């Protein structure tokens, strides 16, 4: 019963990753592709191409934080609505997430392009404004696409929150900020953690958003990988970079598991 799926995983997940690992120790064949070898050169060369990695980490962190800041109040509002309205609103927030990722990113191309917002700003007298092919555009695209993904775990934790605890805190004299800091935030920490990891990891592997909204100017690991495999055909080096990305992701997951296991473990919102 387990054989078909097990075989599929083995042939198309384990084997390819193993081959990827083997390739990362190889050399670039003269006509492109892989030549059998065993060298650590590719890994040694990775730091020289670290711009992509640094960009990615920076943008992923910024994007995740922005998503969190924007999504938390939204999730709070949703969780404090009454019954049916809550579900309807939630459905409408998640709905864009079901539509095509590519289309949602493409939509911003027109808005940020020469005939979109910049044209409006020019009409008001702002002079030449370039919004497309900037880190701003990529960040905007990231927040736009990943917001529903961040809202969902936040909503789940906030909805389960016992509102009476907040009342009790206020009864004991704590102000609004105090209550939020000492009651709401700690109790919704699992949801925050889930949302953060749910958003951070995919952003690290993003290709479409920097490709479409960043032009060639915003270079993330995803773009670097595509370039190495389809353009310069340096498969060994690309494999090493891909392994590097996998390691980064694993570190992020390890950090998530470690942070999640500290402190109280009773109520875990596990969405992975």
């Amino acid at each position: 019963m387990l054989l078909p799926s097990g075989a599929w995983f083995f042939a198309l997940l384990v084997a390819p990753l193993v081959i990827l690992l083997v390739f990362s120790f190889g050399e670039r064949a003269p006509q492109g592709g892989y030549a059998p070898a065993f060298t650590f050169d590719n890994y040694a060369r990775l730091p020289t191409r670290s711009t992509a990695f640094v960009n990615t980490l920076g943008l992923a962190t910024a994007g995740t934080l922005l998503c969190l800041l924007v999504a938390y109040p939204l999730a709070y509002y949703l969780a404090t609505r009454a019954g049916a309205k809550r579900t309807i609103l939630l459905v409408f927030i998640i709905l864009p997430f079901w539509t095509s990722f590519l289309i949602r990113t493409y939509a911003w191309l027109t808005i940020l392009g020469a005939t979109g917002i910049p044209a409006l700003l020019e009409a008001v007298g702002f002079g030449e404004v370039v919004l497309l092919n900037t880190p701003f555009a990529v960040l905007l695209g990231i927040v736009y696409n990943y917001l529903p993904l961040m809202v969902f775990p936040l909503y789940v934790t906030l909805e389960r929150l016992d509102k009476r605890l907040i009342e009790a805190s206020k009864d004991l004299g704590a102000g609004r900020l105090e209550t939020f800091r000492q009651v709401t935030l700690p109790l919704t920490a699992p949801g925050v953690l889930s949302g953060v990891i749910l958003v951070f990891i995919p952003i690290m592997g993003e290709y479409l958003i920097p490709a479409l909204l960043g032009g060639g100017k915003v270079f993330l690991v995803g773009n670097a990988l595509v370039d190495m495999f389809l353009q310069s055909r340096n498969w060994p080096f690309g494999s090493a970079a891909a392994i590097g990305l996998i390691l980064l992701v694993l570190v992020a997951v390890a950090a998530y598991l470690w942070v999640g296991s500290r402190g109280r473990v009773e109520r875990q919102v596990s969405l992975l």
Partner: protein
Amino acid sequence: MDRLLRGHSAFLFLFLYVPIALVVLFSFNAGERAGELRGLSTRWYGTALSNVFVVRALQNSVIVAFSTAIIATVLGTVAALALQRARRVVRTAFDVLTYTAIIIPGIVIGIATLIFFVNLWGWLNPWLAYLWGVLAVPGEPLEMGQGLHTIVAAHVVFTMAIVIVLVRARLAGMDRTLVEASADLYATPWRTLRQVTLPQLSPAILAGALLSFTFSFDDYIIASFVSGPGQSTLPMLIFSSIRRGIRPEINAIATLILVVTLSSLFIVSLIYRRQAARTAAARRAAAVA
């Protein structure tokens, strides 16, 4: 405070929907340029649907997405059911595989699968040529390469993992007593599976199938790596069109995709609602009896 939250939420709703609305609006643009709206017309739908490349890409996408959804749902559900009774070692191994498949970025899956297939064909094709010679089969020997099948193979890895996670979660929360009751009433394991377990799992299975279809239909990066020459999926076509300059056709195609995705969501939610109503009615009948 509440007013602030309400304003923030309202702004975000606009933020989420205005870009999509603009795409839909501009798909009916009668004008030539993508940026300027000049009256309404459906001409771009006509252009898009009569474009042979668009139609073929759409066909490819639908074929790949359907195949992926079916294979992933069947294999994933079977695996989830089998994992209930598996040994601890096997279950941990599958956990690792499943979460690896979900966590690894799509681009890495695309790259690794490409390398795998290139190596596979490099090894397999000479053997096929040899076989052809040995068996004296007339005509050219079969030569395997990249194609729609390789896209499906790569998509199934991720989608099957999702199905396994969803179905296992549902299994964990399922009412065991019903299964025991069914066995007590002399039902064979197969019958129990068919009449008790699977209906209870159907929301998870349905959700898994829908997610698999949507993911596969919408995927660009994996498809672009493992597809065969001349066999584009719709996202690949859209992406290269965007790269060459925004054409109003894209708005029409995009709106069509939106309609397809939303209607499939709607259909599935209807099926789910009917299933839930039927289960509730059955439960009420059982409670009365």
